[in-house]
């Protein structure tokens, strides 16, 4: 009989176990499946591969991708290349963490529970709000959850979304909204920032929340404070989607007045991995705590008064609320949250500031270089580490030429409309050496 590394029972084990059960064949254990729907024969899948063959096959596939180790990439738009300290993977690779389930049994899960508690503290600190959950799926779904939560809390069902919010996030939000019969409405952007005039016009009584991004999709540092003031006048909540790296240097959305902060946590020590698994961050003001979706860890004591941690406030959650739930989230991104905690603990306040500062300085340097090389600025607003350039009518060919040398210059924005027909969005971080920026600027100059 073919053996499989992950299936221990021997033929003799199987015989003994069947005898104990009191049936004479394995087939008898499947006799409750109506014959009409029994699957006969074998699934049409490739034959089992040994570890060596499987790994070779996957290495072959992996080599068919151009990894960023072999490229210069200014791609961002929601996923960012950063330095990931080696300790991150070393710690999340501790098997007691990654092979565990949700910590339902606190006595043997203090490791993860305390780690979640620490994560919640870090997120609250970073975003300037009171409470964090244990994580959501990613930055895109976090906006969806936040908006639904805002509707549930305000009992209103209209959400205003800035056009300067990542279009992918807006698309996911739209799906969430359709699900719960919520309407979304877009607020236009001017020069890469939310148009406050339009916002004011649309801030009607049925509006639950305004969603904006800070720094926004174009990299612009939005005037969150002003938006919060406008919205709060109408008792409208403000949901700010942010970049956690930027918060090493920019004022926290909480301090600016945001009621709910969400973020894509990938930049905090999580690898790019072609888009996932990433980390959905959400923090809220205390008042919103009972509407916060997902797991939450809380501190308590054991019978001897020792500090310990448990999952708490479960009355909010789907397994208790069932059909009355306003979120269905169950499993989340615990291991990515752990990575974020290790990352932030490793960087410390000084390190995070330093990363943010380098992103900012290098992005400004790169933008200047590329403009000198002939690209045109599209926006004039203040920005953090992303910005938009216009490469003119030959934009597509230029990107293509650079791509052939494994230079991924930026994300084309043509889907955003005619204004951005030839525009690309670039992100620059601490991984970009001056020499690489200069090299690309040189190449660009020759192409423009």
């Amino acid at each position, binding site marked *: 009989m073919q053996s499989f590394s992950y299936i221990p029972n021997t033929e003799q084990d199987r015989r003994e176990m069947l005898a104990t059960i009191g049936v004479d064949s394995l087939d008898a254990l499947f006799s409750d499946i109506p014959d009409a729907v029994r699957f006969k024969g074998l699934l049409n899948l490739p034959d089992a591969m040994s570890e060596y063959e499987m790994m070779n096959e996957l290495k072959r596939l992996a080599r068919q991708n151009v990894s960023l180790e072999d490229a210069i990439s200014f791609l961002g738009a929601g996923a960012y290349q950063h330095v990931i300290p080696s300790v991150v993977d070393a710690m999340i690779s501790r098997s007691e963490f990654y092979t565990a389930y949700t910590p339902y049994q606190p006595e043997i899960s203090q490791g993860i529970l305390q780690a979640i508690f620490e994560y919640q503290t870090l997120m609250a600190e970073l975003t300037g709000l009171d409470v*964090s959950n244990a994580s959501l799926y*990613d930055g895109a779904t976090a906006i969806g959850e936040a908006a639904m939560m805002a509707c549930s809390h305000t009992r209103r069902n209209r959400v205003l979304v800035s056009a300067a919010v990542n279009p992918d996030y807006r698309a996911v939000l739209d799906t969430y909204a359709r699900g719960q019969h919520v309407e979304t409405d877009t607020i236009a952007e001017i020069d890469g920032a939310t148009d406050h005039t339009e916002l004011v016009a649309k801030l009607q009584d049925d509006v639950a929340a305004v969603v904006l991004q800070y720094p926004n999709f174009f990299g612009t540092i939005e005037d969150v404070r002003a938006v919060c003031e406008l919205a709060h006048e109408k008792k409208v909540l403000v949901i700010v989607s942010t970049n956690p790296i930027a918060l090493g240097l920019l004022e926290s959305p909480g301090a600016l007045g945001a009621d709910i902060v969400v973020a894509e946590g990938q930049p905090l020590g999580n690898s790019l991995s072609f888009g996932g698994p990433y980390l959905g961050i959400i923090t809220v003001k205390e008042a919103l705590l009972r509407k916060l979706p997902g797991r939450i860890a809380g501190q308590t004591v054991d019978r001897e008064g020792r500090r310990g941690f448990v999952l708490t406030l479960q009355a909010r959650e789907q397994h208790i609320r069932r059909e009355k739930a306003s979120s269905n989230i169950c499993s989340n991104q615990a291991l990515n949250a752990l990575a974020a905690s290790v990352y932030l603990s490793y960087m410390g306040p000084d390190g995070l500031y330093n990363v943010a500062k380098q992103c900012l300085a290098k992005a400004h340097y790169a933008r200047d270089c590329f403009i000198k090389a002939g690209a045109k600025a599209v926006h004039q607003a203040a920005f953090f580490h992303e910005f938009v350039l216009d490469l003119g009518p030959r934009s597509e060919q230029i990107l293509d030429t650079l791509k052939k040398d494994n230079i991924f210059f930026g994300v084309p924005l043509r889907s955003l409309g005619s204004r951005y027909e030839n525009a690309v969005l670039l992100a620059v971080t601490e991984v970009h050496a001056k020499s690489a920026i200069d090299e690309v600027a040189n190449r660009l100059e020759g192409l423009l």
Partner: protein
Amino acid sequence: ENFPLIFERSKPGRKAYSLPVLDVPDVELSTVVPDGYQRKEMAALPEISEVDLVRHYTGLSTRNHGVDSGFYPLGSCTMKYNPKRNELAARLTGFSQIHPLQPTETVQGALTLLYRLQNHLSEITGMDAVSLQPAAGAAGEWTGLMMIRAYHEARGEKRTRVIVPDSAHGTNPASAAVAGFTTITIPSNERGGVDLEALRDALGNDTAALMLTNPSTLGLFEEDIVEIADLVHRAGGLLYYDGANANAILGQTRPGDMGFDVVHLNLHKTFTTPHGGGGPGAGPVGVKRDLIPYLPVPRIVLREDNLYDLSFDAKASIGKVKGFYGNFGILVRAYAYILTMGPVGLKRVSEDAVLNANYLMKRLSEAYDVAFERICKHEFVLSGRTLKKNGVKTLDVAKRILDFGYHPPTIYFPLNVEEAMMIEPTETESKETLDAFVEVMLQIAKEAEETPEIVKNAPHQTVINRLDETQAARAPVLRYRKPTVL
């Protein structure tokens, strides 16, 4: 002594981080950051050296039980062994260091993998197409239900109700709610299956779908599945398959063949991707042909020039359900697993999962009430009601199990069994492990009889004993705050 929080290990001025020196001209912040937008107070992140950080998280890890630490028969969670080779595969530079927005020509390997995984999961479930995007089982449910809604709406039908059995996971009704449906819960019959009468009563022209976990959370295969499918379809509804328990049926039967129209799988259960202490998982969703137009975008397609591509071109699509294309790193692991097992291995998985469960049920029936006396699939439910005479609750049994180095079963679920204990051994456990667990369970049953205080005061061997959950919820402390020095 309390295990310190990372914040309690912090010391001002200590640094672990290591970054390249800034090699471009520094910027004066006030010239590039708008007034009032420089951070005034830095986030109170810990300041710690590398070794102290490593000791902190290493220490935390040793205060946690994972599958690698020991048997983990947590019902409905399919706590299988997480293969080490899959961890290596997901960490290959060509997978872990690619950006989701790279030109598709530069990520053909990744797209190939996704395309093949879609096809393999279609074959395994008997469906016509699969989307890999949902990040978790619940996300898969929601995605599936949104498609069901779109399907009915496209046909001009107003169907607002989703039927779920009382044994269903909480995510089923919750997902129905967030997809805009109302839920009807129907009771199980005395054999643990769907009560056909109740189903008939519930069905109507407002029925959007029946959501079924099969085998159910009771570990029982729905013997009337053919009739159920027929009833639902005849009422104009669709059938949704919750794949949480798919480990029991790999290669034995397929949701598609049973009549299901939409199915999600939990790759972190059936396909050995690690649970990560609560995630990330992946909840791909498969559909029959009629529902293909509603699949989320982008879809992974093979172009005529034999290159793989992302297609956003689907007018009827429910849209985007997640950033980018799903939890790619998890999908790589699941693909590695399928290649490793092949069709023979996957069939063997369900065989041994069911064999192990029935063996364990049989042996434990010596001391515990079995909720339903019939052959089970990959898991089964015991009731602790017989222990109650000495005041021993199922919770106590679970806590006592901790003393022996095992993770306890799921308790108090499903809701329709009193003092439920839901046990799922999985196929990755050996007979010796099951036998050793049986010995412990028998001993605990004996203790419940003879020395109940030992059980009621358990655990005795853990780093901490029972925690005050009431206090935790009543006066929530959800984050650390630095003590104020007076």
